[in-house]
């Protein structure tokens, strides 16, 4: 089975990267590609609970994030990135994710066929 990683690096709302990454992620998973969504750097803000972007006229990115695991996408969050931003496990949405370190991130990348960066 083809394995693809999506590296989601950008904070939600400031750019469309996460939303478009999710669309492609779920399209891949629907085609029976083994798909990982890996949140690093400011991308980890996507997993923060309590998002309310009504004031800026945007739908919450977190809704699409929460659907990833239902669509057979495995979700990983880089622990270093969370720590750097003062985000703890209790601040995060749901429990369908794995916290990984940089060694594990390197392993996921080396074991995949392709890694796409958003």
């Amino acid at each position, binding site marked *: 089975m*083809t394995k693809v990683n999506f590296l989601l690096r950008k904070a939600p709302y400031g750019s469309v*990267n996460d939303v478009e990454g999710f*669309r*492609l992620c779920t*399209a*891949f998973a629907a085609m029976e*590609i083994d798909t990982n969504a890996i949140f690093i750097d400011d991308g980890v803000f996507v997993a923060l609970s309590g998002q309310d972007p009504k004031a800026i006229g945007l739908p919450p990115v977190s809704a699409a994030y929460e659907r990833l695991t239902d669509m057979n996408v495995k979700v990983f969050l880089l622990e270093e990135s969370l720590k750097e931003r003062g985000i703890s496990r209790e601040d995060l949405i749901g429990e369908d994710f794995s916290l990984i370190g940089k060694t594990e991130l390197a392993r996921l990348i080396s074991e995949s066929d392709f890694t*796409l*960066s958003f």
Partner: protein
Amino acid sequence: MGRLAIYVTSGPYSLQNSDTAYQLAKAALARGHEVIGIYEQVDGVFNLNKNITPLEETDRNIAKQLEELAKLGVKIMGCPVCANYRGVQSEDLLVEGAAFEGLGAVADLVLECDKFVSLGY
């Protein structure tokens, strides 16, 4: 020989991505590789607009470059949802040889290629 697929998410004349996609595809074809497709998502759909007109005649025309690749057998595709969001949904505006295809087409490229080059922000 290898099978190359290219994925672009930025528009024309802003970043080097559109130029890289063209030059890379041409270079790969010249070396006997197969370029199985170029997919334009997000602002990439603007690269497919046949009304693109550079100010200087000597400047490259990015839409024409994609048309040239289509004639060489490269499948040129754009995301219909991104086009709708940007008001460029008309098939009439597409360069010759290009078509709108859903994101499943990107999955097909990934499944069929040896190298997948992603050019974005």
